[in-house]
């Protein structure tokens, strides 16, 4: 059916079919008729203001939450529960402090009953994410960036087809953040993984994605998109990059602001979050 079928066995195609979600006790829908297709191997950034439902949507892609209407399909199969074929990373690294770096990274393999053969694979991954010298370290003694690298290695260890990242770098300093953006962009391209990264950082979206989806708030739905046809690695100072960033910023401002423009909402807006 899909023209992208042949692209790779490693990556996942996602179909979001008119997903609507109302949380219990909420008067209005948080997500309404979200409809999108993400091709296998595509790198997607999902941007939108805080509270517009990005995390909710990502949880549904991960099978950690079910929509009240509509459905999510990955490679044609309806998503109803989590799977080791896709992996979600959060803003908090959420490592287990009673395990060292290597044990944390190997956890998915242990759950899969492959704990014994995990060591070589996990060590290679830790080298890949720059933690070669910290394999036996206590995770509580690592910096925030290093902790997020452990979480990345843990996500990659089960060899998922799809990575779902929920603002994974927003708690990091600017320098670490851009280094990790480039690394994840590189790794996901090298391994031909499908990537969906939720962010409220315009620059992050332009730095990592092939296509940016813009979400509005109240109700949360996809209201626009932008292709980013820039080669890798992306130089943030190049004219094309800054131009696209400006363009996305304007598009973003034009799209989601019906709500913010209402007089009663003035001052409620977190403009600082939208500013890259």
């Amino acid at each position, binding site marked *: 059916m899909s023209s992208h079928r042949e692209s790779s066995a490693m990556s996942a195609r996602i179909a979001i079919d008119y997903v609507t979600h109302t949380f219990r006790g909420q008067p209005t829908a948080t997500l309404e008729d979200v409809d999108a297709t993400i091709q296998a191997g595509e790198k997607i950034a999902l941007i939108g203001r805080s509270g517009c439902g990005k995390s909710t949507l990502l949880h549904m892609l991960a099978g950690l939450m079910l929509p009240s209407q509509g459905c999510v399909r990955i490679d044609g199969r309806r998503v109803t529960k989590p*799977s*080791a074929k896709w992996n*979600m990373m959060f803003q908090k690294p959420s490592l287990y*402090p*009673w395990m060292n770096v290597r044990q944390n990274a190997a956890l*998915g393999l*242990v*759950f899969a009953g492959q704990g014994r053969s995990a060591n070589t694979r996990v060590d290679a991954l830790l080298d890949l994410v720059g933690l070669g010298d910290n394999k036996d370290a*206590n995770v509580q003694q690592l910096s925030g960036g290093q902790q997020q690298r452990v979480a990345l290695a843990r996500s990659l260890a089960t060899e998922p087809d799809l990575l779902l990242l929920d603002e994974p770098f927003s708690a990091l300093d600017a320098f670490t953040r851009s280094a990790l953006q480039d690394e994840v962009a590189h790794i996901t391209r090298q391994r031909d993984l499908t990537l969906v990264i939720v962010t409220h950082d315009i620059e992050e979206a332009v730095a990592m994605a092939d296509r940016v989806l813009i979400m509005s708030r109240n109700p949360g739905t996809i209201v626009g998109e932008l292709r980013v046809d820039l080669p890798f690695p992306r130089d943030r100072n190049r004219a094309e990059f800054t131009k696209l960033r400006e363009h996305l910023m304007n598009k973003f401002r034009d799209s989601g602001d019906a709500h913010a423009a209402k007089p009663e909402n003035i001052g409620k807006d977190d403009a600082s979050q939208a500013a890259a």
Partner: protein
Amino acid sequence: MSIGEATSEQTPDSTRMRWRRSGGAALVVRGLHRAVYPLLGVAVLLALWWYGGHLIASDPATESFAGFGPGPTFASLADLIRSGQLWGIAYPSLHRIGLGLLWATVLGVPIGVSIGYFRVAQETTHIPFQFLRMISPLAWMPIAVLAFASWDGAIVFLIIVAAIWPIIFSTAHGVKRIDPLWFRVARNLGAGGGQMLRRIILPAIGQDVFAGIRLAVGVAWIVLVPAEYLGVTSGLGYAINDARDTLAYNDLAAIVVVIGVLGYALDRICLFLIQHFSWRVEL
């Protein structure tokens, strides 16, 4: 450390500094320094005890109780140890408390995990458990005696009744404190129910479980001695009663010392286990 390093600090104190910096000696100094106040505390306790014993022994009205003084007590304690009797007295008590704590843990941890994990379990058990918890374990004594064929069984039951509550509540508290993201991440990594319990929940709450057991040991050890006043013919509680009946006050005091020392040792073991299972980094 080399002496060369210390020469950079030519203060009047430099010889002492150098000595203190040399590895082993520094350790000894630090060890003594840390032991000063605990030793002082023990010395004060012994002094008070000695003074009390002296008053009792020097008053003709209470002279017959002179065995309570530290001198006769330690002499009797030395005898108990040398003759091997002490082990025979203490072992039954340790066996009972071990059995009671084991059962309290085996029952209490799963109950505590359920209460911490399932809201329904928490709400259903809250009132009954708070009610039962407030009943002194000794109040169960007549019931225990009726319900169990042997005195030993009854005593172990009383210890379970005393020990289970802190274990349940501390375990439940530990589970409730688990970061919900830990569950989500583990589910996403493919954890099944059993794996979640073994790899995530139990390691996460290890220190809370042992903190509960530590509290339980405190209560159970206190309940044990009066429970042994009844029926049984072995154990520390029985030995106290027996010494009183035979007017062997020095033996009685020696048993009291043993109770205190063993209780302290059990507490230290628990403390060690709490630290061993604690994953929080001390900063």
